[in-house]
């Protein structure tokens, strides 16, 4: 598995919401549990946290034919190829790995939070105590040891699997085809292709928090791809122009008005 682009496939049609992946994630990554309150849902904690990198979201849903369904979605970092978080991170604390995944180096994180609004999937979470963000790194330490991520290893139903990119995308499409009736593959077509892809048995709109057409936000592109180079060109251009002005036109010196004022010193 080492040194090749990997994709983790989440087949939601096979997820039973056992939440083994949530526990395995905490165990491998040594993330403490949060004290939570019952808020009327099995979804616990209620949202992703700095110490909860993956979360099964529970959703009650009535499909087009009026059938009631209980949907489960494993939420977490999608590991974008064109990752907005990597684009904005000032310290390279967020970076692409040899597997194409987006890893996180807490030593480098300065808690600027730039990645939080940049992420089209609303993934990074801030830890007020350590002043650092937290998010899934797809168990980089395990991938480098040629082992599957903890969540994949823990999954009892085969909803989670990981493998070479092309192979996994093919597998996902095959599975979506087999499911038929509105099932789709989510992830390979945007932000350069994500390294986590879903097989969705229901339309994208059935899953709250899952954007229909995610992209690097326009203001982030303007900031990093347009204004950042423009600022250097503008500043450098003015400096160059000032230098040329000085050597070609010359400075504007005061006209000494000695005639009117007399010549005595």
């Amino acid at each position, binding site marked *: 598995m080492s040194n090749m682009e990997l994709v983790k496939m989440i087949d939601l049609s096979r997820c039973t919401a056992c939440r083994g992946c949530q526990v395995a994630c905490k165990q491998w990554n040594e993330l403490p549990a949060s004290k939570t309150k019952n808020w009327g849902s099995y979804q616990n904690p209620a949202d992703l946290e700095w110490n909860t990198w993956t979360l099964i979201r529970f959703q009650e849903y009535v499909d087009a034919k009026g059938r009631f369904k209980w949907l489960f979605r494993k939420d977490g970092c999608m590991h974008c190829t064109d990752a907005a978080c990597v684009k904005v991170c000032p310290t390279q604390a967020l970076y692409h790995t040899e597997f194409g995944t987006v890893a996180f180096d807490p030593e480098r994180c300065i808690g*600027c939070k730039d990645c939080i609004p940049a992420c089209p999937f609303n993934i990074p979470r801030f830890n007020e105590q350590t002043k650092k963000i937290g998010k899934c790194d797809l168990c980089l330490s395990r991938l480098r040891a040629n082992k599957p991520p903890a969540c994949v290893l823990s999954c009892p139903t085969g909803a989670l699997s990981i493998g070479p990119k092309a192979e996994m995308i093919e597998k996902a499409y095959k599975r979506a085809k087999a499911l038929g009736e509105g099932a789709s593959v989510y992830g390979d077509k945007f932000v350069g292709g994500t390294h986590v892809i879903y097989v969705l048995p229901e339309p994208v709109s059935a899953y709250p928090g899952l954007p229909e057409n995610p992209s690097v936000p326009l*203001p982030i592109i303007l900031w990093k791809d347009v204004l950042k180079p423009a600022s250097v060109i503008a*500043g450098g*251009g003015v*400096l160059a122009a000032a230098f040329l002005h000085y050597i070609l036109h010359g400075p504007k010196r005061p006209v000494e*008005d000695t005639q009117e004022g007399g010549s005595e010193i």
Partner: protein
Amino acid sequence: MKTQGAQIVTVTNGFERLVHWSLALSCIVLFLTGLAMMFHTLNALSMLTGGMYNLKQIHNYSGIVFAVSLFIAIPMWWAEAGRFEEGDRQWISALGGYIGHSKHVPEAGKYNAGQKLFFLAVVVFGLCMVVSGTVMWLQAKFDLSLVRWMYALHALGFTVIFAFFFVHLYLATIGVPGSASAMLTGKTTYAWLKTNHGKWLKELEKTGLIKTNTKK
């Protein structure tokens, strides 16, 4: 007795100079720390601050110094530098005589039209920086798409102020010799004032604030 050309005229007061330098130095610190965060290669600047975390904190708190200075500077200089007057249009179309050798440059008042443009750019984009920076700092309290656009606005404000900064730096130092002392000691020579702010000099002479010693 010195010649009239070498006569010294006070053009700024101490408070103006204090506000100017508070704005300028906080701006330079913000430039350096901002650039260090914008370019990974310039992360190296953080060796001066004991790491990027401290550099980021310095950026944020310098922003407060900048904001306070700006809020003092705007009302202080608005009447003199915030409003255009007769002759400013011609001054701009002649590019202040800095480019080409236009002989039809109207005499400037206390601030020439270029200085006014710079002041207004600092006011408008400085306020943009303060607003966007605040939203970025306290982002959890604001709407997501607003926060995203504030990052773009922050980058736009930087681009404009960064370019204007070098224009100002050049023209206030080697580009127009004799200018820097106006913001260092507050004093310029009579000749400098006559060359660069002739209209203002006439006003000062008319109101008797400056006594010329042409007739002794």
